[in-house]
C-alpha cells in the first residue's frame, strides 16, 4: 500500500431535508464517508425510516423538527467531530454559532445554478423560466441562504417535457455522484478552490405562492404555460388556472401548434384533450387536470361539462 492510502477517511455529517438526499446518503454510507445524519423538518415516516437505517450502523442520527431545535446542533456536531458537514436541502438556516465549528467545513449542495437561482425551490424556477440546463452548485456556507463562495456548478441538462418531479428525481440521482465526487475531493485535496459569488448575477427566489403558480391566460404564451404546468407537477398538483369560471389545476398538457380565433383562456375544441386558446395564437392541449370533483382526464372533464 502506498503512503497516500494511509490517510484516514474523512468523517462527514449530512444535514438533509428528506427523501431528496436518500440516494446521496446511500452512496456516501456505502463508501463509508458518513458519520452522522441530521434531518430537518422531515415527515415522521421518513425520519423513522432513516433512524432505523442508522441504528444498524455506526452512523449517528438526529432529527431537527424545527428552527428552535437547531440550538442542539452545535453540541451534536461537536460530539461527532466531523471533518465536513454536507447540507442537502436542509430547510433551516444554520446560525453563526454552529458555523463557528469550522471555516470552510460546511458545504451546501444547491439543486440549481448559483448565484442565479438562490432560494428554496429553484427546480420550480428553472423549469418555469424554460432553462435548457440547470446545475448542482456546491458551495461553502455562510450565515445567509445560498450565498457562500462557489466551489463549482456541475451542469445537468433539462430534457424537453421534464416536470418538477422528473427533474427532481434526476437531480437526486446526480446529487449522489456529485456528493461522492466532493467527498473524494475533500479526502484528497490539499486545497479546495472557491470563488465568491458575483452579486451582479444573483437572484433570490422566494418560495412560490399562488401568484407564481397561476396561469394568466391573457399574458402568458403557450410555451410559458406549458413550462409552468410542468414546473408545478407534482408538488402543487399542477398549475392553478380559471377555466369556465371554475378554479382548477392543470397537471399535464402539451403545446398544440394550431392557430385559433378565440379569446385566451377559452376552450377551442375538445378532442382527446381539452384545447385552450393562448394569447400568442397557440393552443395548449390539456390531458389531465384537477377540479373540486377530483383528478381526471380531459375527456372525463368534458363529459361532466357540456361544451
Amino acid at each position, binding site marked *: 500500500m*502506498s503512503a*497516500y*492510502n494511509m*490517510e484516514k477517511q474523512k468523517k462527514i455529517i449530512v444535514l438533509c431535508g428528506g427523501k431528496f438526499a436518500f440516494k446521496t446518503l446511500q452512496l456516501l454510507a456505502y463508501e463509508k464517508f458518513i458519520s452522522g445524519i441530521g434531518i430537518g423538518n422531515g415527515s415522521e415516516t421518513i425520519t423513522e425510516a432513516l433512524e432505523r437505517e442508522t441504528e444498524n450502523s455506526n452512523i449517528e442520527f438526529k432529527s431537527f423538527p424545527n428552527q428552535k431545535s437547531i440550538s442542539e446542533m452545535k453540541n451534536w456536531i461537536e460530539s461527532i467531530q466531523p471533518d465536513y458537514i454536507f447540507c442537502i436541502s436542509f430547510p433551516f438556516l444554520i446560525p453563526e454559532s454552529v458555523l463557528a465549528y469550522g471555516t470552510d467545513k460546511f458545504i451546501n449542495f444547491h439543486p440549481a445554478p448559483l448565484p442565479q437561482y438562490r432560494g428554496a425551490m429553484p427546480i420550480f424556477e428553472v423549469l418555469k423560466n424554460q432553462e435548457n440546463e440547470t446545475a448542482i452548485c*456546491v458551495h461553502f456556507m455562510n450565515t445567509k441562504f445560498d450565498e457562500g463562495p462557489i*466551489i*463549482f*456548478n*456541475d*451542469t445537468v*441538462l433539462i430534457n424537453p417535457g421534464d416536470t418538477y418531479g422528473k427533474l427532481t428525481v434526476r437531480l437526486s440521482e*446526480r446529487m449522489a*455522484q*456529485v456528493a461522492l*465526487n*466532493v467527498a*473524494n*475531493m475533500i*479526502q*484528497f*485535496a*490539499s*486545497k*479546495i*478552490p*472557491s470563488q465568491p459569488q458575483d452579486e451582479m448575477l444573483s437572484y433570490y427566489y422566494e418560495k412560490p405562492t399562488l401568484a407564481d403558480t397561476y396561469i394568466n391566460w391573457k399574458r402568458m404564451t403557450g410555451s410559458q404555460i406549458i413550462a409552468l404546468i410542468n414546473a408545478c407537477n407534482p408538488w402543487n398538483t399542477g398549475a392553478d388556472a380559471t377555466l369556465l369560471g371554475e378554479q382548477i389545476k392543470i397537471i399535464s398538457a402539451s403545446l398544440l401548434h394550431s392557430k385559433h380565433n378565440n379569446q385566451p383562456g377559452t376552450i377551442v375544441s375538445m378532442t382527446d384533450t381539452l384545447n385552450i386558446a393562448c394569447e400568442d395564437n397557440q393552443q395548449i392541449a390539456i390531458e389531465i387536470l384537477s377540479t373540486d370533483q377530483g383528478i381526471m382526464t380531459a375527456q372525463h372533464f368534458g363529459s361532466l361539462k357540456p361544451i
Partner: protein
Amino acid sequence: MQTIGILLPRSTYYETIGFDLYEGLRSGLKHLGRADIRIVSENIGFGADKQQCYRSAEKLLLEENVDLVIAYIGHRTAQLLRPLFLAANKMLIVLDAGANLPHEWSVCPNIFYHSLHNALGAWHIAKEAADNGYKNAGMVTGYYDGGYLHTYSICKSFEIAGGTICFNHATGYKAADFTMEPLINHLEQYPDSALLSLFSGDYVQWYFEGIKNLFENKNIPIYLPPFAFEETMLAKAVYPSNNIKGIAAWSKKIDTEVNTTFIETITEAGRIPNLFSLLSWESATIALKVLELTETHKKNATKIATDLQSFKFESPRGSIYFDSKTNISISPFYKATIIPTDDGMCEIQLEGEATDVFENYVKLTDEELNNSTSAWYNSYVCI
C-alpha cells in the same frame, strides 16, 4: 507562456508508455508550430491510486498553473477529478483506452475524452462475427483484460446480432496460470464457434502461442479488438493461424500523408510510433483548439465545450470529431486481419475502413449496463 500539464501512467508490459505519451504530445505541438508551449508532467503510477491521481492533477492546476491537463486515465478517475477541474475552471482532456464503460455518460463541459475505443471495437467485431455467419461464440479473455467492461460490449453486441455466447474462458494472469487448454473441450462441445477474444500487451503473445500449440492448422475463427492489433506487441507474437480478424484503431500501414508525417516525426524523435504516441500526438491538436477557444470565450467553459463539440480534425487515423452527447471523440476504425511475417511472427493487413462506426457507438452508449460493474481502477494496459 502557455503551459500544458500531462498525467503520465506507467505499465509493466508497455514499459515506454509514459515516454510515448509525452513524446507524442511534444512532437505534435512542435509539428503544429507550437514548440514554445511548456509541458509539465506528473506521474500517476498505474492510475489506480485515487489520491496520487488527484494530488498530481491538483499540483498541475494549483501549483504549476497549467492552462489545461491531458491525462491517460479512465472514466472513473476522470469523475474523481471532475470537481477539481470544475472548481479550477480548466479543461481536462482524457486520453482513454476506451476499454471500460461508464455507468452514466454524464457530460461535463470541463472534460473531453479522446478515445481508442476498445469496447466499441469489441462491439464491432462481435457484430462482424455474427455477420460472418457464426451463431455461437465463446468469449476468451484473461484475469486482467476480463476486468473491463469491453467484455459486456462484446457479448451484448453478439447477442443483439442474434448470436449466443456458449462459453467463457478467462485465464490467469501469470505465465504459469495462463492456459488455453479449456478451449479444447469448449470447442468440442460447441464446434463452429467464433472466439471473441479480449487480450492486450504480452497476453496477445501468450494467447497466440496457446492457440498455435493447441489448434495449429485448424484455423479456428478468432476476432480481436483494437488493443490486440497494437503493432509493437504483434511484432513479437508468433503467427498462430490464418483465420484471425478484427478491428484496428490505427496502423503504420494507413497510407495517408498525415500518418506518414506522424510516423516519420516520432521515429526521428527516437521512438517507435504506437497507439499511445498516436493518442497524445492527436491530443496536441485538441489542446491547441482548447487554448484558442479559452482565449476567444474568456474561459467560459460552456462556450468552449459547445465549440469543441463541433471541432473536427484530420489525424493519422483519419477524421476525428466529437459526439456532443458524451464529449467523446469518434474516429475511424479499420477492418484488419493478421498475416505472417517472413520469420513467422504477426503483422496487420488492413482490409478497408469499417462502416457505421458512429451508429454502433450510439447503440453501445444507449445500452444499459444493468448490474455489470468493473472493479479495475487502473488505466487500461497499466499493470
